[in-house]
Structures are given as C-alpha cells and as structure tokens.
C-alpha cells in the first residue's frame, strides 16, 4: 500500500517528522503525494462499524431531503446559492457515500471528502438548528474529518497542527519553558506601570487557574499581561500552570482524536495537580469547546464535566463587572457604535449568549446587535481551522462576505471579537475587502476603561 514520505496514515510522533513536514513549504510535496495515497478500505469499514452508530446512521438515513438547511449555511448563501453547498447535499455526497459503500471508496473520493469537510464546512453547527429532525451536519463533518485524518487525507496545516500538540502539548511549537519565560517577561515588561504585578505559576489551591491559547505567548504576549493586570485590579487569587496550559486543540480541527485526548489529559492533569476552585480560559472559542465542552468525553469522563468547574473569559468578565470587582469609568465607555461577534463555539455550543451582552451593557454606550445574533449568528467565516489552511484561501474569502455584510449593516466600525478565530477572520475580511472596520478582544478594551484603585496605581 503506497504511502507518501510526508503524506501518509501515520500521525506525527517526533520533532523530526514535524520539522520535515514544516520544511515542505505550503505542502507542495505533501499534496502531490496525496494523489497516490491508497485508501485502506478494510480499516475504514472497521472504523465505521465501531464508531458510526445509530445516531449518525439515523441522521444519514432519515434526512427528508427537504432543503430546509440550505439557508442556514453561510457557504451556500455566499456562493450564489449553489445547490452543491446545501449542507445535506455536502454530507450525503461525502460521508453518506462512504457509509453506503461500507468504506469501499477511492483516494479521489477521499480528497473530495477532505476538500468538502475543511473548505465547505467550519463545523459551526448552525445547520443543526435549522433541520426539523435536528440533524447536526457540523457534528457529522467533524466525524468525517476523523475518518479522513485516519486515512491520511488531511490538509497539510492540520496535520502539522495536531502534530504540534503531540510533540509540544501546545500548538505553534511553544514549549513549557517558552511559556513560563513569557509570563516572567511580561511581568518585567509591565511591573513599572503596575507595582506588585505577578503572574503566579503553579500556585496550588488558587481561586482561578487561567488557561491560554498558545498563540498568546507566541504572537500576543501582551494579552497575557492584560489578563494578569485585570486579575490584579479585580483582586483575584489566580495562577497559571507550567504544564497543560494550552487549552487549544488543532487536533479537534484535524480530526486527530487521539491527539485531542492527549492534550486535554495534560490540561486536566494540571487542574488536578493545582486544585483551583475553578478554571477560567482565555478569549478563544475553539479552545473552550475543546477543553470544556468536548474534552471531558475524549478523556472518558462519564459526567461530561471538567475536573474543576470551567468558565470562559466572558463569564469571568461579566461576573467581575456585575460584582464590582472591575469598575468601568463611565467617561471612558465606548462612544462610537459597536457590535459583537458571537463565537459559535461558546455561544451556539455553550449557551453563553447573555454574558457577552452583559459586558457590552457596561462598556458600550451604543451597542448594536448583528442580525441574526446569539445562537443564530453566522460563523465568522474562518472557524473549524479554515483560517489556517492555505489550500482553501479562496473558499474562505468568499465565505467572509457573510460576516462582512452582517457587520456593515449594523453601521458599526468597531467589532468586539472575544475569540481568536473570529478575531483573525474579521481582521482578514478587512484586509480582503477594505471596508474600514476595526476589531478588538475584550481585555484591551476593559483595560482602557477600568477604574484603577489608588493603591494599584502606577508609581510616580
């Protein structure tokens, strides 16, 4: 059975393998090798028999072919209502075909499945809310991604991403040492302005264990400092962990379920070792979905819960504003019209609709909703890993039109994006369409307008 040097059925296990894959710029050789990759049909069938059970089979079989899911999908809407973008069609022609053929499909079909699963679906789960039977095609595409991954048909960046988690227990090749160093560096950077600012590492029994997205130490270290300063002002007893500190999961995007479990095992280990009262995670959607919503199941936790109660940053911020731990200077509230991007991963898929709105009520004078909003909001256009896949840049940019038009019709120039993926998608849509909007995480906004108690104010 021919296997490519870079493109094969084996997940990344070592740093050398990872570096070899990274050296193949843009995945040129990787995608070339994929054309000759053979499908292990026996393995695929065994996998279906073991994991494709009544929920999924019933979904595929009972679909009434009514087309009521069509308008729920932003890819359908932004591609001139191309019938081939109807969610039911997309899943029936890919996973449905594999199931009906009992795994007897060829590489050409698997490449089509890959292209569909990663460039025509962001697993935003919106279609699941519009199907009369509640058929959630986002869940099925996520499952299809797992089948694709196990057969080696996975976008280059996704294979790298899940490999990063396997090798570094964090994405972007950030080591535990890099992470702790970044925390120390940020303290030094900001200690003149914020006397007594600390980022406690591995403090046991703290009230809050704070988890981040590895992009923060890599690209946005100030985000960590901002989180520290806000906890500092709020008087929180908090800590970070030196291991299992990255709550992201490119493995989830890749469909590499083994690696996804390894990552959350690491994170839960940190929770169990440090025994905080609760966990608060940074402004990221998929990281929250992976660690809090899906992770317990990967880790085999039968109650579906994390070892300690877990909260998204927006929940903490809403609570801090409500309880007065953070007080907003009314003169500094945002004056210009401002809108809010609802992240699929913790709004539609974790019910935190009101936390973000509560925050907006404290910080904005003219908050305007997108239409539709809350759990009915559209994906930013870059979710599910799509932002990071070069092969599908064109498809991604077409999909961004939905969010562009949604934002423009609010009349706002500023979009609050408490999610790394949404943040990137909105940034990219500005780059592509140049509509003159700006975007921000919550932390820098809060920091600009929070009242600082006397004793915490910078020394003269």
């Amino acid at each position, binding site marked *: 059975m021919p296997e490519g040097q870079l493109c094969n059925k084996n997940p990344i296990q070592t740093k050398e393998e990872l570096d070899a894959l990274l050296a193949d710029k843009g995945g040129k050789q990787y995608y070339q090798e994929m054309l000759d990759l053979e499908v292990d049909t026996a393995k695929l069938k065994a996998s279906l028999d073991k*994991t494709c*059970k*009544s*929920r999924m*089979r*019933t*979904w595929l*079989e*009972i*679909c*009434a*072919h*009514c*087309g*009521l899911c*069509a*308008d*729920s999908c932003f890819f*359908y809407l932004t591609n001139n*209502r191309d*019938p*081939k973008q*109807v969610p*039911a*069609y997309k899943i*029936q022609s890919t996973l449905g075909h594999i199931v009906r053929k009992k795994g007897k499909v060829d590489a050409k079909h698997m490449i089509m499945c890959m292209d569909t699963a990663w460039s025509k679906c962001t697993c935003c789960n919106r279609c*699941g*809310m*519009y199907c*009369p*039977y*509640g*058929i*959630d095609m986002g869940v099925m595409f996520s499952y299809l991604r797992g089948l694709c991954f196990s057969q080696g048909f996975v976008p280059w960046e996704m294979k790298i991403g899940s490999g990063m988690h396997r090798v570094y227990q964090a994405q972007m090749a950030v080591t535990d040492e890099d992470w702790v160093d970044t925390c120390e560096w940020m303290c030094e950077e900001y200690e003149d302005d914020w006397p007594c600012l600390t980022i406690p590492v591995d403090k046991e029994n703290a009230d809050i264990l704070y988890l981040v997205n590895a992009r923060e130490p890599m690209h946005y270290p100030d985000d960590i400092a901002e989180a520290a300063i806000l906890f500092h002002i709020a008087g929180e007893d908090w800590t970070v962990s030196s291991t299992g500190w990255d709550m992201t999961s490119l493995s989830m995007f890749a469909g590499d379920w083994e690696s996804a479990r390894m990552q959350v095992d690491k994170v839960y280990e940190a929770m169990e070792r440090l025994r905080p009262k609760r966990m608060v995670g940074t402004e990221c959607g998929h990281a929250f979905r992976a660690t809090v*919503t*899906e992770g317990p*199941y*990967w880790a*085999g936790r*039968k*109650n*579906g*819960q994390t070892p300690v109660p877990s909260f998204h940053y927006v929940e903490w911020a809403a609570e801090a504003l409500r309880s007065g731990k953070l007080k907003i200077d009314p003169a500094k509230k945002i004056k210009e019209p401002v809108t809010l991007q609802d992240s699929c991963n913790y709004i*539609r*898929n*974790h*019910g*935190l*609709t*009101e936390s973000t709105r509560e925050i907006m009520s404290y910080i904005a004078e003219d908050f305007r909703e997108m239409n*539709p909003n*809350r*759990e*009915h909001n559209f994906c930013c256009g870059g979710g599910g890993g799509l932002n990071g896949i070069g092969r599908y840049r064109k498809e991604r940019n077409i999909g961004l039109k939905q969010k562009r038009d949604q934002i423009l019709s609010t009349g706002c120039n500023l979009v609050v994006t408490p999610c790394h993926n949404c943040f990137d998608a909105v940034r990219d849509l500005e780059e592509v369409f140049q509509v003159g909007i700006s975007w921000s995480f919550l932390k820098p906004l809060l920091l600009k307008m929070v009242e600082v108690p006397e004793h915490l104010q910078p020394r003269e």
Partner: protein
Amino acid sequence: MYDFLTGPALWLAFIVCGAGLLTRIVWYVYGLNWQLDRVAYTRHPLAGLKGALRSILHWLIPFAARNWRLRPLFTVTFFLFHLGLILVPLFLEGHAVLLEQGWGIAWPTIPMWLADALTLIALATGLAILVRRFALPEVRILTTGSDVLILILAMAPFLTGFLAVQQAPGYQFWLLTHIVTGEILLISIPFTRLSHMIMFFLTRAQIGMDFGIKRGGMKGRGIAW
C-alpha cells in the same frame, strides 16, 4: 377479497408496522453511546429531559422554531399536510365503524365534511410539496426516486379513499385499492423514511439532550430553537 383485506391482511400490516417501529426504537436507543456521541445522556436526567422536551415541542408547534417562522408559506403547507395525514385515518367515521364492528370499541370521529376537507387539503399540500421538490434547486439536488415514491405512497390511500367515499364510478375498485394502498403504506413505514413518524421524536430528543446537557443547557437559558 374484502374480508381477507380487512381481516388477516390488515392484521399483518398492523403487526409489521408496530413491530418494525418498535425495533427501530430499540435499535436507535441501544446504539446511542455517551462517549461516541459525546453526550452524558444518563448523568444529567433533568437537564436531558428539559432539553429533549424543548427540542421536540419547538419543532412540533407551527412557528415555534425560527426556521418555521422564516418560511411561513412552507410551514403552513407542511403542517396542513401532516394534519390531514394524521387526523383523517385515525378519526374517520368509516374507520371507526370497522373498530366498532370488529371489537365493539366506540371510537371518536370527526364529521364527514371535515374529513373530506382535510383529505383534499392533504392531497393539495402533498402535491405542492412534490412540486417544490423539483422547482427549488436546493431541494432538487437532494431529491431521489424514493422521495417521490414515499410521497405517492402516503397520498395514494387518500386519493383512493376519497374516490370511494364519493361513490365514484368503480366504487368496488377504489375501495379495494384504498385498503391495499393503506396496508402497503403501513407495512412500508418502518422500512422507509416514513419511520420519521416515530424517529422524529427520537432524533429531536437526542439533539435536545445534546444541547441541554452538553452544549450550554446547564449554563445558559437553553437554546432558542
């Protein structure tokens, strides 16, 4: 012939339909898996029950789900079609008479004029749904032969039954065809997508539990379908 069709054949149709649907239910529930589906079905029974009921009711009641509200014409058509399909066979006087004669059970009925109206509505809306299948590109691309067949299967007893009731020429033929198509319909329910008469409740309950237990139901106000 009539005696056979309303006797052993009818029994067979009912048994196949009932046993088939029962098998479907057992198979479905047995195949649910907390770890594969990633829903802790049994650990949070109250949240699960609440999620399941909300999920079913919002889609069972016209205009209670956003997608029903977004397309009022389709929603009205769809619900009228189902209303006729359910009410007429269950509460038709002619059917109640059979029960009365066979088992001595007094069965509630709807007036004949209502049954006639509902039958015509079911036929008209069914036709509209069939036309929609081919008129809209997003539905046409999904449509298979079995979709058309199922719709014909569901409407045939209504057409033949209506003709028989109206004493159309060839009454005997229409009556027998009505019984035969009705029995074919009953038998095909468990083996086709017509099984949705039961599976609808199961799949809706499942996704309701998913959202009620895992995806925010225990934290937020519950999903607004």
